[in-house]
């Protein structure tokens, strides 16, 4: 029988990581995600699965530990919140450029600067457009429930290995901090070093009989060869875009209006949609689960069906740009957002949609 537990999203991340067979977690405390590191330290997985847990001296060090672990073929992760994730961007760029797998969790708080410890979705641009220097993409998973916080740890690490590309779980502070029912994934053993050597023939983990040395690097001084590397990355991104788009649709079959929202906000929007449907207003919801690759084709399809689209975000309007690129001007697209750590009530969303589309 499934064991249902009650816990915070951040705690679910930690438990899911141990159960996945994660080899290491490297982190640095920052609100509102410190429970990830705290839970791991309390669980002492090094005594059970052999998982390494290390509190680094900074987010910069933590992400570079992730880079080292990933370069050696291990399943490694880190977590942080917005200001800390800004510091991690250097390492994330190197990890993406070196084509190695890693999992990064960002439990977003409000910015810019030190901002606030309250929830936000203001790191959408940073996460989906690259974040650090150079042309690259992360696969971005957006959880809306504590269950998805747990599930996306395994999914994210699997995708990272499948594509040899870093994956980010981009959660808002609401999903990190709220407690909910969750069914944790089953325990699975960590891979042995022998399995890692077979699965990751590229990894720098000692030659151990290999007839050549492995070098994990993002450096290439020859422009012709560097462009080949760049093109190989772009080719991977095209394949990911074709294969890995994930989203959820609700009430879209007969929808005349569409709300696009991600993370916890999508759940608030669903409440607003249910209330509007009781009033006879046919509103549907599209919740992107992967923010990159973005469900462009699905929004394009729906834009040929509905009269207008509202995006709702905990920011000044970031995802709306990708929605507009998908809609290509077919119907009007508006944004409703709250900032500063304020989470909108369903009535605000209802009011915004009505004011834009129903002249109410």
């Amino acid at each position, binding site marked *: 029988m499934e064991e249902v537990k009650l816990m915070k999203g951040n705690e679910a991340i930690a438990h899911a990581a141990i159960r996945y067979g994660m080899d290491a977690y490297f982190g640095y405390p920052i609100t509102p995600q410190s429970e990830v590191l705290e839970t791991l330290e309390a669980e002492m997985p090094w005594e059970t699965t052999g998982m390494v847990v290390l509190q680094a001296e900074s987010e910069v060090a933590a992400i570079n530990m992730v*880079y080292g672990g990933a370069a050696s073929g*291990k399943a490694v992760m880190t977590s942080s919140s917005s200001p800390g994730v800004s510091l991690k961007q250097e*390492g994330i760029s190197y990890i993406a450029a070196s084509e190695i797998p890693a999992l990064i969790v960002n439990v977003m708080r409000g910015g810019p600067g030190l901002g606030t410890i309250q929830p936000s979705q203001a790191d959408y641009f940073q996460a989906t457009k690259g974040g650090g220097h150079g042309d690259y993409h992360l696969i971005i998973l957006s959880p809306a429930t504590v269950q998805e916080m747990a599930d996306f740890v395994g999914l994210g690490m699997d995708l990272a290995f499948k594509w040899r590309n870093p994956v980010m779980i981009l959660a808002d502070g609401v999903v990190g901090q709220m407690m909910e029912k969750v069914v944790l994934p089953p325990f699975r053993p960590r891979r042995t070093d022998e399995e890692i050597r077979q699965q990751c023939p590229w990894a720098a983990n000692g030659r151990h009989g290999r007839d050549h*040395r492995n070098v994990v690097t993002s450096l290439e001084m020859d422009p012709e060869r560097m462009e080949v590397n760049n093109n190989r990355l772009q080719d991977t991104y095209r394949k990911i875009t074709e294969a890995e788009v994930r989203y959820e649709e609700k009430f879209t079959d007969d929808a005349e209006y569409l709300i696009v929202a991600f993370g916890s906000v999508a759940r608030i929007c669903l409440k607003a949609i249910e209330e509007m449907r009781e009033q006879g207003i046919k509103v549907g919801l599209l919740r992107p689960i992967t923010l990159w690759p973005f469900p462009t084709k699905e929004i394009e399809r729906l834009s040929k069906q509905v009269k207008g689209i509202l995006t709702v975000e905990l920011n000044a309007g970031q995802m709306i740009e990708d929605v507009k690129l998908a809609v290509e001007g077919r119907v009007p697209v508006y944004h409703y957002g709250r900032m500063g750590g304020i989470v909108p009530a369903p009535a605000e969303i209802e009011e915004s949609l009505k004011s834009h589309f129903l002249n109410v």
Partner: protein
Amino acid sequence: MTVEEIIKPENKVYARPELLTKNITHYCPGCGHGVVHRLVAEVIKELGIEEKTVGVAPVGCAVFAYNYIDVDWVEAAHGRAPAIATAISRLYPEDVVFTYQGDGDLAAIGTAETIHAANRGENIVIVFINNAIYGMTGGQMAPTTLLGQKTATTPYGRRADLNGFPIKISDILAQLDGTCYVTRQAVYTPGLVRKTKAALKKAFQNAMAKRGTSIVEVVSNCPSGWKMTPEKANEWLKEHMTEKYPLGDLKDVKE
């Protein structure tokens, strides 16, 4: 006649270490990096750990170190080598992990990573080349640049009031409980080369025995950056560098 025919085996006193690749290095004539690379390659081979050694290359002149020593390597971001080495060492405790870093990498941008890896007593070897200048980027001031020393960013000489003082980072590292061996060596004479090799061997043996962090600083030269001939650079090194950075062991914890 081939080289093999000219050099009779019984007369051979030196050969390229087996672990050095045939790649032509990008180092300038007279630079100490080539000697230290050779010593690291010899020590790894002599200890028989080439199959389980992972190197972490820095950003700086040794950025291409992975082209020259035939072990697995990870290329670090500037200054982050000790963090990367920490992860690999913790995840493969039976492997031997070393970083190879310059003064800017280790004692400026990577100060935090260096001090905290050493303070945690990670079982790694840190090979630290101190030539008091940023060679790769064209000869700018390093944290270890001497007072009065001219560089591209201290064209009239380093001034304490403007640029602060040269940092003796190895002395700081020797204070940390996590370090088992901190030594400062040089390679500008054959005798010193032999001493440096012995120091490197001790450092790698410490890592094999999981005794904590070992740091081998090599006070070196930069003929191109210092704008001197190799010979003059070594004279200047002996006269000025070893005065500020005296050679010898700073810490050697016995079993």
